[in-house]
């Protein structure tokens, strides 16, 4: 699973960015760690991958990665989605570091839209790719206003939005990028992870770094910091539930992707975290599956 170290790409600095740029990003990261949940502006650069593809996460990873690191990159929970493959190749080429698909083996995990199911440990760093770092953006479009609201800790408007959801729909109508309060102070966008993953952020032993390249912001949740999803006493925060288990590994505790299997409404639910699913199957867990799916798996 782990690909060994290689020689980095000739003609470019280690991890693409020059050392001055990496230092300026690390300074922003240090500030972000010191003020959990606060969005630190930084001099984001154009990267060879487009904005929206994870340039913020890539710049954060590039500035912290060292020759000894073992990198895992996931998109939608999976290591083998095209964008995850592309970013992993980028770092394999520009740094030559070892890469892995195993959550347990990685020292740095760059992710888009998921937190791995396997609990992270001390010493690990998870780097989130963030499209819109501002949790208040859908309530207030102007950066000049939202900065003031953060400064004054004026978050009532977000509670009003959640309340209006309950009044209109009977529940809070936000399934991903669900707003959290960090360390009892800053309202923070957890990036578009499903709210299923929100509880994993709370008092996590790993360092959590967030990079938004296009919006030029970095923020962080240091290890063991409180991360609370907003809710009401009578409408406590809740995560998604499925009536199914993973069809491949039988997991009842993981986030499931719904796979359309035919044009007659056939569905199959499988773990979105491919490493978690694979580990479970290796350990002998079997889902209800379908014979066809199992045969296809066996053939691989």
């Amino acid at each position, binding site marked *: 699973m782990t690909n060994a170290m290689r020689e980095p790409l000739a003609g470019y600095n280690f991890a693409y960015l020059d050392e001055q740029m990496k230092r300026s990003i690390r300074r922003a990261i240090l500030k972000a760690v010191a003020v959990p949940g606060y969005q630190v502006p930084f001099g984001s*650069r154009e990267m060879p991958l487009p*904005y929206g593809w994870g340039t913020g996460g890539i710049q954060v990873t590039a500035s912290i990665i060292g020759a000894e690191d073992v990198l895992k990159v996931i998109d939608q929970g999976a290591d083998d989605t095209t964008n995850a493959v*592309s970013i992993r190749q980028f770092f394999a080429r520009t740094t030559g570091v070892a890469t892995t698909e195993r959550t347990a083996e990685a020292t740095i995990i760059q992710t888009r839209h998921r937190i791995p199911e396997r609990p992270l440990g001390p010493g690990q760093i998870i780097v989130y790719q963030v499209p819109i770092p501002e949790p208040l953006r859908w309530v207030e479009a102007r950066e000049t206003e939202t900065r003031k609201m953060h400064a004054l800790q004026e978050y009532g408007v977000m509670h009003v939005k959640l309340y209006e959801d309950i009044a209109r*729909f*009977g529940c809070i109508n936000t*399934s991903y990028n669900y707003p959290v309060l960090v360390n009892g102070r800053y309202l923070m966008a957890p990036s578009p992870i499903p709210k299923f993953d929100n509880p994993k952020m709370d008092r996590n032993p790993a360092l959590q770094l967030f990079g938004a390249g296009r919006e030029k912001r970095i923020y962080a949740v240091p290890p063991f910091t409180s991360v609370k999803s907003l809710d009401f006493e009578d409408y406590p925060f809740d995560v998604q539930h499925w009536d199914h288990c993973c069809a491949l590994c039988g997991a009842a505790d993981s986030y499931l*992707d719904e796979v359309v299997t035919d044009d007659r409404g056939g569905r199959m639910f499988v773990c979105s975290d491919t490493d978690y699913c694979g580990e479970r199957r290796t350990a002998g867990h079997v889902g209800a599956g379908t014979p066809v799916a199992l045969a296809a798996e066996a053939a691989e």
Partner: protein
Amino acid sequence: MYVAVKGGETAIRNAHALLAEERRGDPAVPELTLEQVKEQMALAVDRVMTEGSLYDRDLAALAVKQACGDLIEAVFLLRAYRTTLPRLAVSEPVDTATMDIRRRVSATYKDLPGGQVLGPTFDYTHRLLDFSLAETGHPQEKPAHGDAAAIPERMPKVVDVLDHEGLIEREIAPPEPAEATDLTRVPLDFPAGRDARLQNLARGDEGFLLALAYSSQRGFGSAHPFAGEIRMGEVAVEIVPEELGFAIEIGDITLTECDMVSQFKGSATESPKFTRGYGLSFGHCERKAMAMALVDRTLRTRELGGEALYPAQDEEFVLSHSDNVEASGFLQHLKLPHYVDFQGELVTVRHLKAEAARRRPEQAEIVP
């Protein structure tokens, strides 16, 4: 049957190979050379250099070729390369009054010192498809070069010299030139200074600025502009190396500069006068320079005591959305997989639907 989304690596490699094949097109047709792009697609090269924030005709031509003529993609290629370049020096401000003029027109004064120089322009061409260009090697009419000596070496800006009544505001350099903001090094902050605004607009998408400028002309923010002066030509770039302590020339660059003049009716603190907007581009990007100058002026609305009511007057709206590399990336990232979020939405919508049906059972039946 369920087939996991495997094989991303092979798929990506094949996509790159297919793209290379598309780029080359029919192999029976000779391959495009960078010299050809540079010489014969010069305006594309100019736009890519301007929005790419890098003056290098060879690299811009390469970017245009590599991007198959997609100019925003070419701008992106140039910007990504720019990230890896060290900063060796900061130039002295260029003096466009000493420009080696190839084109200079003013719409505000009929005649002026130095005269009007039409230069190479589409302005008075009849837009008739020239079928003779469909054939290569057709004879070209040689331009009659006027008396170059008639163009003075130093040609001060029209609006700086011809206004003896002080009706047009002067652009006065600050006595102690502070270090200009560089948006490629520090993030944009609001309120943005004029330096940050002009840099943002200079890098901004031509189409976006054109539409904004046009909207202000049509009444979404009243600008009443006149093209005070447009000039295009070569300007020397100088740096002061630390070990020398005096300025040396490191080369010439082509620039297009535009001064727009707009009427200003005055406010409680300011007397009525003509105000100015400024546009500048690498190469010959006249439409861009003009649009930029107009938008620079509309963005001064608040500074001049007005209320920003329209998009073209709204600094945060304009400056946050002008960059086409940012905009194109964020728009196109919608192609990336979002099935985790979509799954969350599926769960929510199913729940909402069940909830609605529970509340109003009669409505649930309408749904097929």
